[in-house]
């Protein structure tokens, strides 16, 4: 029974983190049809920015928890929005209309470049901003403990998911975006400024990636290469859920999170396969993921 509770708690906590990481990826794909491989680098950028700023703050004698969150939010949003804007305006804009797969490869090139840029800025020494994580303490349930920070990630994840849903389904911009998703050419013909919408979407997606990194920074030690590790995981989640669907990303994250938690608690040696196995199994039965839709060709 203990194990069942532990699986549920861990599964949902991990799922919330996965969703944070994957949300930006799926938003960008949904609107722009770009599977952004550099998403992991934005995650890493957010993590580095937050970790180094937190390091400065604590080294300067700061010890306010709320201030730490302000720092994380400000750093992540700033760096995410700026980098997102730079990538979209400086590069992707030149390439719109090309194959989806070519866009994937372009973002792969961006990933390679950003990896080294980060190394040049932050070096290779791990950044370690554990203070907020440690300061928030934990809740004990029998021998199990749950970190309050992890619970906060869960809450943030739900808030972000709900806001994204609200933004896409209930606002004017969301309506425009959905029309772009439905038919780009017709929206353009109806006078929608598709390029501007793309800029906004990419910045938001990039910022989501950076926020995921920033919020993860106090949990982990920030080292070169974390972005590459994260991106495949995020891919697995969005492909399982259905590319471009926020609900899909959420469900995909929960499935992957629970599957992984089950495996770790009961058969730790299977952990490495479980994510890919889930993804492969879902794709076998639903070739476009759980919430994905095939696009028919016009004849």
């Amino acid at each position, binding site marked *: 029974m203990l194990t069942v509770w532990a699986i549920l708690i861990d599964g949902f906590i991990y799922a919330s983190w996965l969703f944070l990481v994957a949300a930006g990826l799926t938003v960008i794909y949904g609107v722009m049809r770009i*599977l952004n491989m550099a998403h992991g680098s934005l995650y890493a950028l957010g993590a580095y920015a937050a970790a180094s700023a937190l390091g400065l703050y604590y080294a300067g004698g700061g010890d306010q928890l709320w201030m730490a969150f302000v720092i994380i939010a400000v750093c992540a949003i700033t760096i995410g929005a700026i980098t997102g804007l730079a990538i979209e305006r400086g590069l992707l804009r030149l390439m719109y209309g090309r194959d989806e797969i070519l866009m994937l*490869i372009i973002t792969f090139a961006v990933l390679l470049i950003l990896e080294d840029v980060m190394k040049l800025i932050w070096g290779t020494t791990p950044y370690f901003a554990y203070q907020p994580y440690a300061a928030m303490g934990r809740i004990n349930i029998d021998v199990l403990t749950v970190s309050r920070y992890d619970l906060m990630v869960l809450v943030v994840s739900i808030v972000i998911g709900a806001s994204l849903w609200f933004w896409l389904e209930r606002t004017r911009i969301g309506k425009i975006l959905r029309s772009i998703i439905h038919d780009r050419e017709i929206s353009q013909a109806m006078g929608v400024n598709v390029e501007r919408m793309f800029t906004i979407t990419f910045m938001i997606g990039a910022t989501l990636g950076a926020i995921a990194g920033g919020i993860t920074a106090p949990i982990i030690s920030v080292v070169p290469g974390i972005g590459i590790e994260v991106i495949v995981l995020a*891919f697995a989640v969005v492909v399982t859920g259905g590319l471009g669907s926020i609900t899909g990303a959420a469900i995909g994250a929960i499935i992957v999170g629970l599957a992984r938690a089950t495996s770790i608690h009961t058969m730790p040696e299977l952990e490495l396969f479980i994510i*890919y196995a889930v993804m492969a199994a879902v*794709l076998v039965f639903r*070739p476009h993921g759980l919430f994905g839709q095939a696009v028919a060709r016009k004849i």
Partner: protein
Amino acid sequence: MHLDKTEISLIGVAVATALAAQLSPDWLVFTLTLAISTALVVMGVVMLMRAGLVSFGQGLFYCLGGYAVGLGGRFLGITDALLLIGLGVIVTVAVAMILGLLMTRYREIFFAMLSLAFSMILYGILVKSHGLGSTDGFGVVDWTLLWLESETADGANMALLLAIGLALTIALFLNRYFKSSIGLACEAIRENEVRVEYMGISRQQVLYINYVLAAAVGSVGGSMTALAAGHVDPTLAYWTVSGEFVFIALLGGTGHVAAPFIAALIFTLVRTYAVELAPNAWQMILGIVLLLIILFLPKGIWSLFTRKKGAAS
């Protein structure tokens, strides 16, 4: 059977390379061997690309080929290089024939991601195989080629000659393949699947044959890498390695069988010098090169050779 001009040129280049290698320093011989082996795998990626599919999991077959050589030598006592390569091809074809049933139903990003998933599953299995050295991998036994021993002083040269021989055979085959009915059917599928079906061609069957052949070619590349490097490890199946193959395929372009070879050689040399000159920024150099290629040579380096043709028409 008479040879067309491309075939004569391919044979000529192969012979020239083999002769030039006799005068080249050893490191270049080795680099060339690896570049050729890589080019073979890239050739598989190109075969899929011509059919409109991008595989981020060709490392799966590269790795199977490599491990077949490693395991065949270690546990079955096979030392003949050709037998080992053949073993790799058999295993790979068997795996590809099963996966192909599934993979040919997917396109675009889903094909890319599913191929990545299968490659990573193999990676996971190998990492968990403590008996096979897990991530450390293991050494490949000293091999022979017919009656020749690789252990002799000229082992590197022998590996190169073997690689050239295999590459030439495969290049000659693919040169014909690309111009044949099935080769063109692949391109037709890339261009318009609806029309292909209405022509009475089964997309699934064409893609299946193409997928299995691409896998076999990838396996030969993997086997050759293992024979040359003398070591196999699960990294061969890691997705970034497959990403590298896609990179090289784009670098060369899909226009000609020679393109992957030139691209692989350039890639290897650029990387070798980039690693040396800028050990902290070589990935950035690769990324920038990739972007420049996509921006200015969208059909790869090979388009430099054919540009005039386009301008003339």
